[in-house]
């Protein structure tokens, strides 16, 4: 703490930094202490010297041989650089530009005779193969998911939307990470207001490290102090293609297998890709089940605490007998009993996520059965509560969005505290505050509870139920798409 203020930050003038003239000495100096930096002199058949500068770990070595070394060996031209295809010869190259090119996987070539610099992009694009989505698994439908390679991700979306109106705008964010970010939208469908807002937000990101799409989302969100996500993260190209088709934006971040969809609403977090694969009646039923599960997971334990603490008169006599019987030997109040069990179940949930798959399953069994049974026998929790905690925990998994299911847990704790003090009234106060809070939230300046409020009646066809696709003739009104109708030929 005594060192505070002693550290000095070095700021280089931007003007000065951008105009340092390139020379081999400066490049050597900049690449000093970099084991993987290579500066190689190469003699061509014309007995002239070509210097190759590159970062070994960032380039594709096979392509270096094929595209640069071999052409130079066979070159009989006077201008050596003309032999190399895909060469980028800039008018003037500054050191900073050269540095950036090197770090992005290009190779710099210096022709000593001509005193000319050029660059060739040899970026090593090898990465993880396209695999099945692990976070949004579905039984039927496409199995491919995004990878860490942004260009591959763009291609996955383009395959689904082979149209020239699918636009991609590239940005670079993060002063240290220099992360590539691509904003995607369909021109003529997505409202320009959203594009402008997103563009401005990406440009305004001023942070050194953007390593993940969720970090970018954190800087782009309209509201920082909320538990509700304002961007939908997905690793499914089909979900992104669908989002683009209805008038949303997609943001891809390099080295992240998760894309961001926006603007979203609270209700989008309950929609699953399978909703549009199942028959509409089945899909609607499943969607309603998801909403109910969300409610159950939020309310069951607080309601148990409220009823057993404040409103015994609300419980029918037969159920009351069971409750009194199971609670008669317990030393803890319903609130503490519930709190301990909820914290325990959260610990088990988190631990099973962090462990290897097989150990996670074992942990689930031990946590669910052994700990639950032991807690009852030891007199820490009643059987009724164990049943409720179990149902509540299972119900919380039905929310397709992981970020939302985590928010769910926090809200449950707040409702639990309110229920213990104010009973049912406290629970409704909590729900009221929750709705008021959500009502004030926005995603890309678009209200979070739309189409409920602001009210868009037509959009209700794909809200709590998933109506037949034939009936969804228009794109969601709430997204203000520039092209309203979804069918191309008038009937």
């Amino acid at each position, binding site marked *: 703490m005594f060192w505070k203020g002693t550290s000095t930050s070095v700021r280089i003038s931007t003007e000065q930094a951008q105009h340092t003239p390139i020379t081999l000495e400066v490049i050597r100096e900049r690449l000093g202490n970099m084991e993987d930096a290579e500066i190689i002199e190469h003699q061509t058949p014309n007995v002239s010297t070509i210097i190759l500068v590159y970062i070994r770990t960032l380039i594709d070595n096979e392509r270096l041989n094929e595209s640069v070394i071999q052409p130079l060996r066979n070159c009989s031209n006077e201008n050596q650089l003309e032999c190399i295809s895909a060469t980028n010869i800039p008018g003037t190259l500054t050191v900073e530009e050269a540095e950036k090119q090197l770090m992005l996987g290009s190779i710099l070539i210096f022709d000593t005779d001509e005193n000319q610099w050029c660059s060739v992009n040899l970026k090593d694009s090898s990465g993880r193969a396209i695999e099945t989505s692990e976070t949004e698994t579905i039984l039927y439908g496409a199995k491919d998911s995004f990878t860490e390679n942004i260009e591959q991700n763009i291609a996955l979306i383009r395959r689904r939307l082979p149209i020239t109106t699918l636009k991609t705008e590239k940005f670079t964010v993060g002063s240290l990470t220099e992360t590539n970010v691509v904003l995607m939208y369909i021109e003529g469908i997505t409202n320009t207001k959203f594009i402008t807002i997103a563009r401005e937000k990406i440009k305004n990101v001023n942070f050194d490290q953007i390593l993940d799409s969720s970090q970018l989302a954190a800087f782009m969100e309209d509201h920082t102090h909320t538990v509700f996500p304002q961007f939908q993260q997905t690793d499914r190209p089909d979900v992104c293609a669908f989002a683009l088709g209805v008038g949303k934006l997609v943001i891809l971040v390099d080295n992240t297998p998760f894309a961001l969809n926006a603007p979203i609403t609270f209700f989008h977090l309950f929609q699953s890709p399978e909703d549009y694969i199942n028959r509409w009646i089945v899909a609607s039923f499943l969607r309603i089940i998801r909403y109910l599960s969300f409610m159950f997971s939020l309310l069951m334990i607080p309601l148990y605490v409220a009823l057993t603490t404040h409103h015994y008169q*609300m419980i029918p006599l037969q159920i009351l007998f069971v409750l009194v019987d199971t609670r008669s030997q317990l030393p803890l109040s319903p609130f503490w009993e519930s709190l301990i069990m909820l914290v325990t179940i959260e610990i088990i949930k988190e631990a099973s996520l962090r462990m290897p798959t097989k150990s996670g399953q074992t942990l689930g069994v031990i946590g669910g059965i052994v700990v639950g049974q032991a807690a009852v026998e030891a007199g820490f929790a009643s059987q009724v509560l164990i049943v409720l905690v179990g149902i509540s925990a299972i119900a919380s998994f039905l929310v397709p969005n992981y970020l939302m299911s985590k928010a769910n847990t926090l809200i449950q704790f707040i409702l639990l505290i309110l229920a213990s003090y104010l009973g*049912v009234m406290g629970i409704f106060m909590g729900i009221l505050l929750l709705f*008021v809070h959500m009502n004030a939230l926005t995603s890309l300046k678009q209200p979070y509870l739309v189409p409920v409020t602001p009210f868009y009646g037509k959009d209700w066809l794909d809200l709590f139920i998933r109506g037949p696709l034939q009936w969804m003739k228009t794109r969601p009104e709430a997204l203000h798409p520039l092209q309203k109708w979804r069918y191309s030929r008038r009937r």
Partner: protein
Amino acid sequence: MTELSLFEKTSSYDGVYMTLMVNRIQMLYFAIIMPVFLIYPYMIWMIIIVGGLSQVSIFMLSKWFTSKYASKGYEGFVDLFGERMVRLLSFIGIGFILLKVTVITLGYVEVVQHFIFPAVNTNWMILFILLICWYVASLGMNSTIRFIVIAFLFTAPMLLLLLKFPFQPFATIHDLFPLIPYEWTMKSWKSVLFIWSALSGPEYLVLLAPWFNTREKILKYMTIGNTFTVFEYLFIFIASLFFFGSHYLGENKLPVVEMIRYLNFPVFERIDIIFISVYLFHFVFAISIFLLLFYGAIRITLKKSKVQTTRLGFALCCSTIILCLMILNEMLWKKATNQNILLELAIWAGALTYLFVPLFLFLSLKRKVRD
């Protein structure tokens, strides 16, 4: 204290919002106590007739909404009446708003105490409810108006709970007789006044005109809201008549909730606790709107309407209301037995504002056009 954009207009709301607001503002605390004021079955006709008369006020209000002055908000009022007059009217309005907030809050808190927490000090409940309203209102007029949809969706379906009463074995058609009065007493006139007052509320919406899209068919939407209210009042009253009967109805202080108390489901035996708790959505919405109007009226009275709203100013207003409510609760509401002076005042105030505000605005518009 930092600045706060409470009255910022970022979007305009269409006729659906107007329908919901007219309906919900008419269905506040008076809906809970209404049957006890009406008692006689022939008041069914009075609800329909007064509902029809209410349509006249709605018509006059719709004229205001479609006028060029409405969308200008404060400036519109100044153009019509002059600044001095607007300040005077705002000053008078502060009292009316305070009275309305007092009665709906204390009334609701009394219901909570009576049915849910008999031992709790009502001042705590006042504090909790107003703190929530403070939070809602501090999010701004836009967000508060938007909240009407949620308030409506949560509270309007509660009416379905009453569907059971007309079909109970004890409900006979004789409970609805006589449908023609044998005699017309002073009490009957007071009941008419009560119905008129119960239907009041939409007159406060003239202050929200800049947030509404006035090009919409405002009369149509306001009429739908008013009709729905009349239907709700009728339904509640008929259900009460079936449940209590005309003779016993006057004996209950809070007949609607008492009635719901007898409902039970296999999982919950006391539905009234849930009913009262859900009604919080309705009350919070209304009180939050009135809090904003109260703050706005104070700003106009103090000639500060063009100055940016501040957290301190709003906090002072909310604190004043909390303090006033607690004092009125201790001094008048708690001690009220048969004669609740605040309730009487609220009935008269509601009736007066619903009669004169639309009329005054309508005549002023006419006069302005003639000039």
